[in-house]
């Protein structure tokens, strides 16, 4: 659905392909001179009264934010969507220290109340039905039991969150872009939650990855014309705010975060992944994401771009296995607004990442031996059919594959394909 909207929006822009090319070139230039642009941004932002902090890793970001809040005795924080803070685990860090952090994007609020992670970059609760959201709001916001109309559910959330916006002592946001020439942050939302969260509380903390820099205000127009069209098919999001100074009587702090990005920058084959503007177009078109859903990835950013970033930024064994979960069809590369060669990147990670674990190699060798011998194969599949009912239901420690700890196999038809063929169409011949 989002993919179709993207295509319709793109068709209305005569220069869309030229925009993609220019956007990629601007990002490549900025990344090449990133040190220069970071320092330029810092200088301009400081001159505008903004305080700039630097965080080499996730822990540094959490500590900087915690200190800013603690020094001011702040307990109530409203937050707008930021994949970076998901990546760095900022919410759990602050919650463990007694700070009340409320996610205000409707989808983020839903997953926060459910106690789960977002499953999509721009539609965090895409995996939840309206009935599930209704039950959740009934428990947490007192909406009537059985209410499942999205408009009325939003009305309940609006009242609940409006009170939290007005009571908050600080607003935490991400940023879509940071402009070196002017020291401005660019923050984009449809709901207006980032704007409320930064115009009401006296303290605004913006957390952004160092790859968010663009050189000047002309450049930002190129990205903004691509971003919403690629994301939701809108020509622009409802609110695109440029914040260059703290609000009257308030403070604005910016935290520039590395957390693995400089390592990607140093890699010839993966540097272009840092062009990403987090539109979600590659998720919406990916056949694997569309079937498996965002939670199957087990990392903050799902989909093709998530599988490209995770081996460097999350860097766990599970994250390094993600590039293998792809058909390499290249649909992601075809829609990426900044022309990241996503499927080539996945392939490059397969070359660089450690090969499959030994247990999987042994399994593959056994399978190859059996499949090359038809009689042995028939015996083996008969045994497998007998074991099927025992293994098909999910249980922890299932010997067939760890996947079956949480998933059931489909019901077995009771006969092999060859047997069914003989019994039906084969017999008619």
């Amino acid at each position, binding site marked *: 659905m*989002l993919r179709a909207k993207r295509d319709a929006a793109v068709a209305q822009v005569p220069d869309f392909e030229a925009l993609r090319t220019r956007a990629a070139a601007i990002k490549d230039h900025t990344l090449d001179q990133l040190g220069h642009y*970071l320092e330029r941004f810092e200088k301009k932002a400081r001159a505008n009264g903004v305080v700039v902090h630097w965080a*080499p890793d996730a822990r540094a970001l959490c500590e900087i934010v915690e200190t800013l809040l603690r020094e001011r005795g702040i307990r109530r924080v409203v937050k707008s969507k930021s994949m970076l803070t998901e990546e760095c685990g900022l919410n759990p860090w602050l919650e463990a220290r007694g700070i009340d952090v409320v996610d205000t994007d409707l989808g983020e609020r839903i997953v926060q109340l459910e106690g789960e992670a977002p499953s999509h970059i721009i539609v965090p609760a895409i995996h939840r039905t309206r009935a599930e959201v209704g039950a959740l709001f009934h428990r947490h916001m007192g909406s009537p039991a059985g209410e499942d109309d999205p408009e009325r559910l939003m009305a309940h959330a609006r009242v609940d969150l*409006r009170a939290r916006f007005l009571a908050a002592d600080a607003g935490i946001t991400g940023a879509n872009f940071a402009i070196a020439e002017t020291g401005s942050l660019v923050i984009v939302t449809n709901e207006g939650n980032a704007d409320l969260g930064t115009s009401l509380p006296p303290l605004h903390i913006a957390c952004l990855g160092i790859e968010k820099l663009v050189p000047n205000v002309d450049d930002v127009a190129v990205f903004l*014309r691509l971003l919403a069209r690629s994301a939701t098919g809108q020509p622009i999001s*409802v609110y695109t*705010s440029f*914040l260059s100074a703290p609000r009257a009587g308030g403070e604005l702090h910016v935290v*520039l975060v590395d957390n693995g990005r400089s390592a990607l920058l140093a890699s010839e084959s993966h540097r272009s992944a840092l062009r990403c503007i987090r539109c979600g177009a590659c998720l919406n078109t990916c056949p694997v994401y569309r079937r498996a859903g965002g939670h199957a990835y087990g990392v903050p950013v799902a989909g093709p771009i998530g599988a490209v970033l995770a081996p460097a930024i999350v860097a766990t064994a599970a994250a390094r296995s993600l590039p293998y979960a792809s058909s390499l069809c290249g649909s992601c590369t075809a829609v990426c607004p900044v022309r990241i060669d996503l499927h080539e990147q996945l392939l490059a990670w397969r070359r660089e990442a450690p090969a499959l674990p030994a247990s999987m190699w042994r399994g593959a060798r056994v399978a190859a031996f059996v499949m090359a011998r038809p009689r042995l194969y028939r015996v083996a599949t008969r045994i497998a059919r007998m074991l099927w009912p025992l293994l098909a239901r999910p249980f922890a420690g299932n010997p067939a594959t760890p996947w079956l700890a949480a998933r059931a196999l489909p019901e077995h038809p009771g006969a092999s394909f060859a047997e069914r063929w003989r019994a039906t169409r084969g017999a008619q011949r």
Partner: protein
Amino acid sequence: MSGRDVVLAAVRRATRTGVEHPGPHPAPPLPADFASFAATLAVAGGEAHGPFARASLADAVLAQARGWAAGGRIVVEPSALTLLGVTSIEISAPDAAPHSFADVAVAIARGSVGVAENGAVAVTGGDAPHRSLLLLAERVILLLDVANLVGDLHSAIRALPDSAWRAQLTFISGPSKTADIEQTLVHGAHGPRALAVFAYRD
């Protein structure tokens, strides 16, 4: 070493030199007329009225504002008051606290530039010094000089005054909205439930 030194050193080690900036993007051949702007804004859930002659602008705007407010609080920013030339409505006080607009029914401000390709209006800190007013109000009215309508976002950004980059600036395209529950579109997420742009000719 400070966090700053660590990050900058890592970045400098990783970067090479010589990738040129591609230069500014040429403005695309997109229409800049009011009808195109109004049609795009309508898709975004907003409404566009006019263009009105300066003399008849105030009556049209006040009729809309009073109809929407139904007796509720209407607040106008000084930028718009100059255009409307009326004294019977509340003007935002220069030192008003951002929270003081929580019960506003209709807010009125001037916009600086309109963008036909996306139905957005740029509102600068000079147009609306109180950012929270245009977000807390149930409904918002923006006034736009049709002479300040451009076709595309590149032209819009170039048309803004330098002062726009020293305070706050927001491009607003329609009422606040969400599609986070089963991708069903709902207007009036956290901000205004409705937005109208009144265009005028000077």
